């Protein structure tokens, strides 16, 4: 297929190999005939039909509130007639009337299998050359915006795909997807439940993205990388508006490009959706799409057989599709962003290494406590400091790594837009994490050992990932450049055997400590050059290993980093918080022309002082330090301190008053160091009971009196939390026995998705030392009961925001009281009053978060 790719200018050596367009993999597929096969290879056009919905409307068959798929049973002749009109107009692919034919949307009106059978019957009656089994979105939102899990969506799609295959379709068509994660679930379901070719299209708005923020280039990279046989766009807008999106997809798509625009921008007039691009204008605008390389062509809403006739004419006139302007590149994607390193073009992408528990006690503690929010903080700070991609490693011996890694990846991909590196030596954990990831992750890592290649590469292929290959094998790490290169070459060859293009392979030549393996430093750098030039793959290096055992490690690291960039390093794995590294990266991006015109560099450094001439401090003061440096005001306001300094801490009265001030003003930054300092000379429990709790009580009183408003209460609670965390780390595991044995479960009730109130309560309760089990939002009464009884929980907090969900609250209270008589329930939420709470049988009513903490304190004090 090299002929259909725009010839890349003068690439030699490894780059020439990397620049080839990957061949569509048609092995194992049931392909109806030679023409369809040629179409799947991008060598023939395939004309697909147009709208079903607007055609139904014209026949007066579109009844609001009716399930359109049932028309396959009630009006098969009409459906077949619509199909037939498209066949007569020259459509080769007829799309079944099954857009919403999933278990959820059919609501039991018919089985999924029956609907597809009837729909395929209609298409066959129309004489369709090829029948595409249509699969639209589930209609429910996936997590985290909605409540449907990835696997639930997968199950719905899998049922549809089995029905598509059983009914005798020739193609699976996944269309009108707005959520890349949902599209991925559907594509996996198709690939794992039938052997038909799969086409997948997403729908983009006027801002060039789907509603969930996916760009055309990301959609094409991810879906074609996973092995869809055609990818593209449909619906939303007309061909003129969608041309840019089609061109973007053509650059990233490894398979034929499919386009099905609307007949222009839809307008709703008097309750009816109308389209105003004529068949002729549609055809004229579609010329641009065909020039961009679209070869599977059809229409969506508002199109009719007249439009199909035009497309047929254009396809016949051109005979052979135009080559797509495919741009070979190493690409990593989140659902929203793509990091692109085009073949033959110097580019640096920084992999942030901070999310890795090795040597990070706070991260370890957070992972052990199941606190994934901590990871988000680490992710955002690395992003702000210039990381392009984030490494995620949660390997701790006592953790269930597959579950935690998958949860961490979910959490990060729902909060941060940077692409992720899934870092684990356990292939089971890697697969668990990449399967539901909306994007194209980089897997870290595979190595030259046969066992590793056989375990990891199938995962890379199946989920369309990129992979880091470590230059080591059964013999260990070769000491010479030639030895490392040889392993790298074997990894690249093995990847290609599995159908993974070398653009998706990144080789790590493995940094060794200069103190122990001094002679290897230059060998590593030489290996980077060899790998890059001869294999045409991108390279990664963990930088900081080089300096083990030497003084001034940052200096050694940044020098090595600069040298490695010169040898062709593309993806340094480093700590973006180290200013020295980012200085080197920013500088080299000027030298390699990535920072065109040095615009970024000048913006960042024009007014910066040279750290060697400006004095010892240099740049890179930690963010919290400025806050910490603010002068203490406790000493001169000792009389005003609302917390009496306890006797046990009387030697440190000023420090205690400073700390109370930090809590009252909600300063998280300085709270950690302040706590550390006091812990050096004093008992942690004295600190908790003599400072944290009394200060929090003062905050609570101020809140009650209206002297503090909500953010002040919370900022103070967060400052205490920082102190608590330091105390816990100091005490080790024994801390939990002392403070956390009184457990409270909190939940937002079934049907309610507003959880901020519950989250505030949770945070405050935790700061009063209670162990809080957070069940999340939209929680079934049975789930609350299950957790409460399994964990022996005696106090449950429920929140509901809407009048309509108070009923679910009432049911939950009833169920708990009936099945778990010892368990008490406190309730809160915008619509509740104390009378209302009493009415629904709740034991306590908390008018706000501070009240919930007092209820909990009283409750456990009375019961001990």
């Amino acid at each position: 297929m090299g002929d259909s790719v725009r010839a890349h200018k003068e690439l030699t050596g490894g780059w020439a190999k990397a620049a080839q367009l990957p061949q569509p993999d048609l092995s194992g597929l049931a392909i109806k005939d030679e023409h369809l096969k040629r179409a799947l290879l991008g060598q023939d056009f395939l004309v697909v039909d147009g709208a079903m919905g607007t055609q139904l409307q014209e026949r007066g068959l579109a009844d609001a509130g009716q399930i359109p798929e049932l028309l396959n049973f009630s009006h098969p002749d009409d459906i077949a007639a619509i199909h037939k009109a498209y066949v007569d107009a020259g459509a080769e692919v007829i799309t079944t009337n099954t857009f919403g034919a999933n278990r959820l949307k059919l609501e039991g009106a018919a089985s999924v299998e029956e609907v597809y059978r009837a729909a395929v019957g209609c298409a066959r009656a129309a004489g369709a050359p090829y029948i595409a089994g249509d699969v639209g979105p589930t209609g429910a939102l996936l997590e985290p915006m909605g409540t449907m899990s990835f696997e639930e969506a997968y199950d719905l799609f899998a049922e549809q795909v089995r029905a598509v295959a059983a009914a005798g379709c020739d193609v699976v068509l996944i269309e009108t997807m707005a959520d890349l994660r949902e599209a991925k679930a559907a594509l996996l379901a198709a690939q794992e439940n039938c052997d038909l070719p799969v086409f997948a299209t997403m729908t983009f708005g006027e801002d060039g993205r789907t509603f969930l923020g996916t760009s055309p280039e990301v959609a094409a990279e991810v879906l074609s990388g996973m092995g869809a046989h055609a990818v593209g766009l449909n619906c939303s807008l007309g061909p003129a508006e969608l041309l840019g999106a089609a061109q973007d997809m053509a650059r990233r798509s490894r398979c034929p490009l499919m386009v099905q625009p609307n007949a222009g921008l839809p307008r709703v007039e008097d309750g009816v959706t109308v389209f105003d691009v004529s068949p002729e204008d549609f055809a004229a605008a579609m010329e641009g799409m065909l020039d961009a390389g679209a070869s599977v062509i059809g229409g969506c809403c508002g199109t009719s057989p007249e439009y199909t006739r035009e497309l047929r004419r254009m396809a016949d006139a051109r005979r052979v599709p135009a080559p797509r302007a495919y741009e070979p590149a190493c690409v990593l994607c989140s659902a929203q962003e793509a990091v692109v390193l085009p073949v033959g073009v110097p580019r640096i992408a920084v992999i942030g290494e901070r999310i890795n528990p090795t040597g990070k006690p706070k991260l370890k503690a957070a992972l052990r406590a199941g606190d994934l929010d901590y990871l988000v903080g680490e992710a955002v700070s690395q992003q702000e400091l210039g990381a392009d991609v984030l490494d995620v490693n949660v390997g701790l011996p006592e953790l269930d790594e597959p579950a935690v890694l998958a949860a961490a990846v979910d959490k990060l991909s729902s909060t941060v837009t940077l692409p992720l590196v899934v870092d684990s030596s356990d292939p089971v954990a890697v697969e668990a994490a990449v399967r539901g990831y909306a994007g194209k992750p980089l897997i870290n890592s595979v190595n030259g050992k046969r066992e590793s290649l056989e375990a990891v590469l199938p995962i890379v292929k199946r989920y369309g990932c990129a992979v880091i290959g470590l230059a080591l094998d059964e013999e260990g790490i070769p000491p010479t450049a030639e030895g490392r290169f040889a392993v790298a070459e074997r990894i690249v060859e093995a990847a290609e055997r599995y159908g993974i293009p070398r653009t998706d392979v990144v080789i790590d030549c493995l940094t060794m400590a200069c103190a122990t393996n001094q002679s290897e430093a230059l060998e590593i750098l030489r290996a980077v050059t060899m790998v890059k030039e001869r294999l045409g793959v991108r390279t990664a290096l963990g930088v900081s290993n080089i300096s083990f055992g030497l003084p001034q490690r940052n200096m050694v690291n940044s020098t090595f980093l600069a040298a490695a960039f010169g040898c062709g390093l593309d993806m340094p794995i480093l700590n973006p918080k180290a200013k020295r590294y980012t200085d080197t990266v920013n500088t080299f991006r000027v030298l390699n022309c990535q920072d065109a015109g040095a615009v970024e560099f000048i913006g960042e450094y024009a007014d910066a002082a040279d750290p060697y001439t400006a004095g010892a401090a240099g740049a890179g003061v930690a963010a919290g330090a400025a806050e910490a440096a603010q002068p203490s005001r406790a000493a001169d306001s000792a009389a005003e301190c609302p917390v009496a300094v306890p006797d046990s801490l009387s030697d440190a009265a000023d420090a205690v008053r400073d700390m109370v001030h930090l809590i009252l003003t909600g300063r998280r930054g300085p709270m950690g160091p302040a706590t550390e300092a006091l812990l050096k000379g004093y008992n942690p429990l004295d600190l908790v009971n003599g400072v944290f709790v009394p200060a929090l009580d003062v905050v609570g009183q101020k809140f009650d009196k209206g002297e503090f408003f909500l953010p002040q209460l919370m900022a103070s609670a967060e400052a205490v939390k920082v102190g608590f965390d330091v105390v816990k780390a100091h005490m080790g595991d024994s801390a939990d026995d002392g403070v956390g044995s009184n457990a409270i479960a909190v939940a937002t009730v079934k049907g309610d998705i507003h959880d901020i109130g519950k989250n505030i309560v949770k945070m405050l309760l935790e700061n009063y030392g209670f162990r809080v089990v957070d069940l999340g939002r939209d929680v079934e009464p049975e789930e609350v009961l299950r957790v409460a009884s399994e964990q022996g929980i005696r106090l449950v907090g429920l929140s509901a925001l809407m009048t309509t969900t108070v009923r679910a609250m009432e049911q939950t209270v009833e169920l708990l009281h009936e099945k778990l008589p010892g368990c008490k329930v406190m309730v809160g939420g915008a619509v509740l009053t104390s009378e209302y709470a009493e009415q629904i049988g709740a034991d306590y009513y908390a008018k706000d978060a501070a009240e919930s903490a007092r209820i909990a304190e009283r409750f456990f004090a009375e019961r001990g």
Partner: protein
Amino acid sequence: MMVRYGRLGAGGVPNARLDRSEALRYLGYTGQQVDEALLTRFNRLADECERVIAPSFAWSVFGIDEKRTCWEAPEPAATGSPDALDAAMDAAESRSAVSSQGAGCGKGLVPQVALAGCDLVLEGNSIAGHLRGACKVALMACTLGAVSEREMRKHEAISVADGVMFGACCSALVEAAANITEDAIVRFAHDMGLSTNWRFSPGYGDLPLNVQPAFLGVLDASRRLGITVTSTNMLVPVKSVTAVLGLFDEPDNGGEARDACAVCRLRDGCELRKRGITCHGR
């Protein structure tokens, strides 16, 4: 008439400015002395909210189908007291919005206002009161989009205090976007020599939330704005607003006649009312 769509803060259109004092009011601010650091934090979040979120909106104006409309319930019992309101609401939520044609006054239940040229029927004493005397009805929808969901989750994960403040900023921003949309409707009405009253949203008074799917359908808002509805009729993205305005022949209807709190289901426990202020600002 056709549905108008638009986006703020993108493609050269300036973004809505969120009212800082309104966001603070949502957070319960009543003039407390606040540490400078916390105010800085709040302002940084407010700036970020305006920078990263581009609200989108849709609106359209409909005639009233008098044949299917019924302004008065035969038994005028279900007005006034909150208890009656609750009972009416309960009844309303158990009916469906689309299939209710003929199930309203005809069966002696509640008033209903049917819009011309579409399936939407607005049910309840409150909405009938809101639209009584109107010659046309405007429907509008606004949303902060999926970005707002992600950004709220991000801030909440890093700091619940930041999350709460950012959430309040989002609420103020979607209100600002709703104000801009409402202004467009008011201008449209004025051009036709009509006056308007104020925004009335599903879930308010006894206008049931289960009208949301049909409401969004009429504006094609799921496809054009990405607003979806959960099985319990809550809007996602959460920072979305749907609302109804009446258009009137006579000048100055609404405005001074407004007592929005009268039909509000939260009025008894409302902290803002206790302080003598309202949530709707204008």
